[in-house]
């Protein structure tokens, strides 16, 4: 090959590179065989305390649910897994049609007109929703209810402040808006797990001429009135709960849905239906003039990915469960969480916060710092809830879903009672 190229050694091809910086030393370990690799990574994996082996009651944006076997089987197919972004529609109809299915399912789940093909995760989807609201209204402030997850507010600040949007965190009880407010942001259920009267919040936003942006838990929408029926203009959600393993936080997929009138302001990939030169139905990436590879600095976002494979996991999950399975998964989750809350409510020293109706998680005031409690719980092979003592004194955010068995839940309550008596 070097003869064909016409050089004596590969170094001649690198001759452009500055002599003094060429071929640096690379201080890396030697290569590992496949056998060594599996052993080493297996060791790393077993250093973790893994839910499944441990009963786990964490939620707060990442949820454990049963994932039907077909999700992994279908998404592991090489044809889906190792395909490129579908810029060449004639050889990408598999990806494009499944993305169209994802858009349909997300639009129906959220109760909105349209959805895009996917964002990085729920939190960035929410941040992009706020940027879009600012473009639509040409206003430069955003009001976020103080009941929204602190992590999401933090991501929102990362995205909103550089282009000059001011983030105002406002009281969920009485949100103050002004004529510069582009949108009001609410989370349903809120960070502590409780269902809010969304229509009332929507009215506050719309009265001020602002859009109403909702971050909604994905599975809860199968059971509770979806944001599209409560005046939402843009809905963001985290698709992870729908068929994606927790994977220490990613990759996930952000759901992004909105009203039809805003489609040309949307970020991200969008698949549309069209016909081919022989008149047959086909799918294609569309409205690409919004995107960075065409519009460059005037694009609606710099995002390129739609996290297609993770979106496909959610698509398979939603399709497999279907109309009745989705509702059933949500109601089972509701049953488990409420059973757990009823047990904890009866343990001396613990009190479940009365924040109204909740879905899968709820806040508890514990008789000791949650970090101490969580450390003790590990002895019982239990991973406890999230330490929210910054929001609530000795507060713990506790989640149960359909994968938590009654046995696990009873054991958790018993352990809390036992540890509680040692205060």
């Amino acid at each position, binding site marked *: 090959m070097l003869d064909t190229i016409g050089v004596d050694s590969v170094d001649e091809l690198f001759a452009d590179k500055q002599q003094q910086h060429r071929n640096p030393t690379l201080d890396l370990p030697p290569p590992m065989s496949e056998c060594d690799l599996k052993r080493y990574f297996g060791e790393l994996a077993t250093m973790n305390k893994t839910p499944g082996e441990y009963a786990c009651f964490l939620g707060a944006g990442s949820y454990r649910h049963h994932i039907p076997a077909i999700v992994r089987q279908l998404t592991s197919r090489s044809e889906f897994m190792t395909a*490129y972004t579908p810029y060449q529609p004639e050889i990408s109809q598999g990806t494009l049609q499944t993305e169209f299915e994802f858009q349909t399912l997300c639009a129906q789940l959220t109760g909105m007109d349209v959805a895009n093909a996917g964002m990085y995760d729920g939190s960035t989807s929410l941040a992009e929703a706020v940027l879009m609201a600012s473009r639509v209204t040409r206003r430069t402030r955003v009001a976020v209810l103080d009941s929204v997850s602190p992590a999401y507010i933090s991501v929102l600040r990362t995205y909103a402040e550089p282009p000059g949007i001011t983030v105002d965190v406002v009281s969920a009880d009485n949100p103050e808006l002004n004529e510069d407010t582009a949108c009001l942001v609410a989370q349903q259920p809120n960070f502590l797990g409780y269902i809010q009267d969304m229509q009332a919040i929507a009215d506050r936003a719309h009265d001020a001429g602002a859009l109403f942006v909702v971050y909604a838990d994905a599975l809860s929408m199968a059971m509770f009135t979806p944001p599209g029926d409560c005046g939402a203009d843009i809905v963001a959600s985290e698709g992870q709960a729908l068929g994606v393993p927790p994977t220490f936080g990613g990759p996930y997929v952000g759901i992004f849905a909105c009203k039809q009138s805003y489609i040309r302001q949307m970020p991200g990939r969008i698949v549309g239906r069209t016909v081919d030169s022989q008149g047959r139905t086909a799918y294609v990436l*569309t409205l690409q003039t919004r995107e960075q590879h065409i519009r460059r600095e005037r694009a609606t976002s710099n995002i390129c990915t739609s996290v297609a494979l993770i979106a496909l996991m959610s698509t398979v999950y939603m399709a497999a469960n279907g109309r009745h399975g989705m509702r059933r998964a949500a109601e089972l989750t509701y049953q488990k969480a409420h059973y757990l809350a009823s047990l904890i409510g009866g343990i001396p020293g613990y009190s479940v916060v009365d924040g109204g109706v909740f879905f899968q998680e709820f806040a508890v005031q514990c008789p000791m710092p949650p970090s101490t409690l969580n450390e003790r719980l590990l002895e019982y092979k239990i991973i406890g809830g999230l330490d929210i003592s910054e929001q609530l004194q000795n507060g713990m955010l506790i989640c149960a879903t359909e994968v938590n068995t009654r046995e696990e839940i009873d054991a958790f309550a018993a352990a809390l009672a036992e540890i509680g008596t040692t205060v």
Partner: protein
Amino acid sequence: MTTLLERLSQDRRQLLMDRSVSGRVGATLPESDVPHQPLPEEGLLRDTLDFPEVSENELVRYLSQLSQLNFSIDHNFYPLGSCTMKYNPKVDDEIASMPGFAEIHPLQPDATVQGALRLMWELQQRLIEITGMQGCSLAPMAGADGEFAGILMARAYHQDRGNTQRNKVLIPDSAHGTNPATANMCGFEVVTLPSDANGNTDLEALRFSVGDDLAGLMITLPSTLGLFDSNILEVVRVVRDAGGIVYGDGANLNALLGRVKLGDLGFDVMHSNLHKTFTQPHGGGGPGAGPVIVGERLLPYMPTPVVNRSADNDGNLIYTLKAPPQTVGRMGAFHGNFGALVRAYAYICTLGDQGIANISHDAVINANYILSRLKGYYDLPYDRSCMHEVVFSARNLKREHGISALDVAKRLIDYGIHPPTMYFPLIVEEALMVEPTETESKETLDGFIEVMRAIAQEAQDAPDLLHNAPHDTPNTRLDEARAARRPYLRWQPED
């Protein structure tokens, strides 16, 4: 009149909602094992969820058939410039799905996820070593997200010094669209830098563009022309002397591995598209991961979290998630795309020291081999040896036979090869950008070369064959204008 065959082929494309039959379900759920808990009042609950009802078997067959309409790296050669579509080792998928990685929750206490944190820390160290930088945050979830983090850091650096007048970011005209889009998202004004006749940065234009309002430069090395900018040291010096931050777009890192470290050249920050350089199945468009790796000046500003290592009183190593002191903040809800990080680190471990350097060696030879053997058949706008990719132009075919880069690309599909990147970089007319990667054999390259030569001949002998390509695909060329003019973005009941 539709024939039975035609109808059956249309039926295979029927959407889920049109396949729905009341009462069918494709997944089972357990019965509740806890005492019944009363549901909330009816008014809070959803009336109906308009979702399809399909059986497991139907769903599997539908999606399996759909999948077969795709090209994929496991079935086809992808000489797709700038995308680094290399083979993804299967063992990495197996490793990433180990329960100890896939099932752990992102909010578990650090003490319960020491294996995961150690993996992340080791990956940070490897990326720092490979790029000659000082620090690394794995938080960004894609290449464009890494760019975003990098330019946010440049912004924070200037703001910290009270230099809010530094509002311009220089970007070469050959850059990916994400660069200007990113600079804009960070509130900067974009100034486009021209390339000179050799495809290098135009130094005169650069010197003219720098001043007190300079925030920084975003540059891809090698450039998207597949060329190593021979002026790069001078480019870096000019920008740094003017007080700017030098950002390296790591999209083409494959060409540099073991050859040059951007840190040594004076770059302040770069991102690495782990899914390209260190493999992750592309998934039809994600997921990826885009860690940022930074030099000393930007260390305090890295996105949160970063994994720290320390020793406890007994000398045991402890790994913890930490926020850098003046962090630009969170890129996402958690710690980045951990699943992609596991795969990338497994790939780096497999290759080791020698294997990493071999990547650039083989990738550059493969690209130059194609360059040498297709030169004369396709125009070569910059006639010099290339790095890991080569940019041809179909302008000769266009001029002589009315054949565009698009026609060549679509004809390649008939031969079972994924088209190269087309019409990019924007500064090359009728561009065809070819990146073979290091994982392809000489036989595969020879096969590609033979096909490309045959297509050049067909352009002369049978141009309509190219205009109407592809021929043997599930769909012929699509009416993309119609899709954009009348957006139809979801299934609708009246269908």
